[in-house]
């Protein structure tokens, strides 16, 4: 869709790991940039990068087709999840100046999983891919673990917790969703995760420079007080070992 291809580059930034994913877990059936296939085929999982320009018929048609032909739709990256920087678009760009209206894919179709971030990180994409595979093909223990891992990313795609997941993200989610709710405990994870350094920690709380914020949603999703699963983190060692084993050369 309307993205910068950074999300796709982030997949490739798994380097040898991408080859492992393709060798063992994934048949790569469609990709405008990398695969020589013209039309959207039937897919188990579609990773969608970019928001949808509703002034562009082809984009609208393709996002609809993607939903109809895929069992699981994953919004890959902030533009697909919540609009991100395309939320600032207002048209006037050559050679299609009338392309001015962009929406997150979830504004038009049901989305199953969010992978937020601008760009999403190679490790996050890897973890989701391995867990998605284990959820479908693993043994019972692996299914349970992978299911627990994916649960918050599936919830985010269904607007839970608000304010993120509702097709619109902002650094001010930290204010509305964490500080206003009496939940911030001054860890600083939000500041570390901001790709444009819009967040500084002032007296232990995030201070957001809203002029800098590109609306990627990384800060809120990285925050341990936005959503947090004890089921998952209490098993962090075994989950990371499982992923390492799945990716071992």
């Amino acid at each position, binding site marked *: 869709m309307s993205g910068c291809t950074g999300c796709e580059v*982030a997949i490739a930034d798994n380097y040898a790991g991408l080859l492992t994913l393709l060798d063992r877990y994934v048949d790569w059936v469609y990709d405008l940039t990398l695969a020589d296939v013209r039309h959207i085929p039937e897919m188990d999982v579609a990773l969608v990068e970019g928001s949808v320009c509703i002034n562009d018929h082809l984009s609208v048609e393709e996002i609809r087709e993607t939903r109809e032909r895929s069992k699981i739709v994953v919004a890959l990256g902030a533009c697909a999840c919540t609009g991100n920087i395309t939320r600032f678009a207002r048209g006037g760009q050559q050679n299609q100046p009338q392309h001015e209206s962009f929406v997150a894919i979830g504004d038009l179709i049901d989305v199953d999983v969010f992978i937020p971030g601008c760009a999403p990180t190679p*490790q996050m994409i890897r973890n989701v891919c391995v867990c998605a595979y284990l959820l479908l093909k693993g043994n019972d223990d692996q299914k349970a673990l992978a299911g627990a891992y994916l649960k918050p990313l599936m919830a985010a795609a269904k607007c839970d917790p608000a304010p993120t997941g509702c097709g619109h993200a902002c650094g001010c989610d930290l204010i509305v969703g964490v500080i206003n709710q009496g939940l*911030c405990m001054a*860890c*600083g994870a939000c500041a*570390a995760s901001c790709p444009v350094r819009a967040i500084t920690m002032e*007296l232990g709380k995030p201070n957001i420079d809203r002029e800098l914020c590109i609306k*990627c949603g990384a800060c809120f999703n*990285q925050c341990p007080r936005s959503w947090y699963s004890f089921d998952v*983190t209490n098993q962090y060692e075994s989950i990371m070992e499982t992923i390492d084993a799945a990716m071992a050369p």
Partner: protein
Amino acid sequence: MVQDNFLGNYTSCVAARSTNRGILAGSQDGGIATGLLAFALEQGIIDGAIVSMVDPSEPWKPMPFVATSPEELYFARGTRYSLSPNLALIKEATRSYGLDKVGIVGTPCQMQGLRKGQLYPIGLRDVPDKIALAVGIFCMENFPYQSIIQLVEDHGNTKLENVVKMDIGKGKFWIYTERGAVVQLPLKITHKYEQPGCHVCLDYVSNLADVSTGSVGTPDGWSTVFVRSKKGNDVWAKAMAAGCFETKPIEEVKPGLDLVTKLATEKITKNRKSLEERAKFGIGKGLRNPYI
């Protein structure tokens, strides 16, 4: 492996103190965090650590920083009882500081943020695999810096710049000045100044750290140490073999693990209750519960 609902998973628990007098002198208790990180740094297990030091511009104001030498680690000794957002540097440590093996000290909630960040590195590209050692501390609650000013200067009638040590223990908040005065405030005064986010915290002893440590459970000058993960066991065994710490079985010291369990149970039970109260905070409407 012990699995405890309140104390988390751990392979061993001991009373310990550093054998390095220099470290012990400036530390709050047994000098475990500083001693372990200094050892890990010397051995190349980590090549730097995110710790908290006092901001040179204001008395007792903590700020996170990246220590890359044992000397720099020594700046970090002691407890400040106020917020130091150490995770704010977790990505930067691997960028402008160039660390490939990052050590970090943090509160239980920071350990939670760290592990969430390793499992879900949404904005933490290339960070998850570089976390080499996470040392967690015990934490009952924490205070914004302004609350410390309020407590020390207003309630304690003491200038913050004259304070040499603060401590919470025996049901009181203790303030020690450089001229030898000791001010004590009952904890019922301090409670309202706590950071609100601490009231939903369900971890007392850094259940997700590699090694966690705190003063509760052991006599003055000693620390209680939980060794938890594979990484934690590995570095702890090496540090013990190198003679960095003196230890005693936790069963042989007073007040021992029972007190740790008691405080952990109290904290977590109280905060579970506060989560329940939050759920019906309004009329037919509640506040958000972050735990899923």
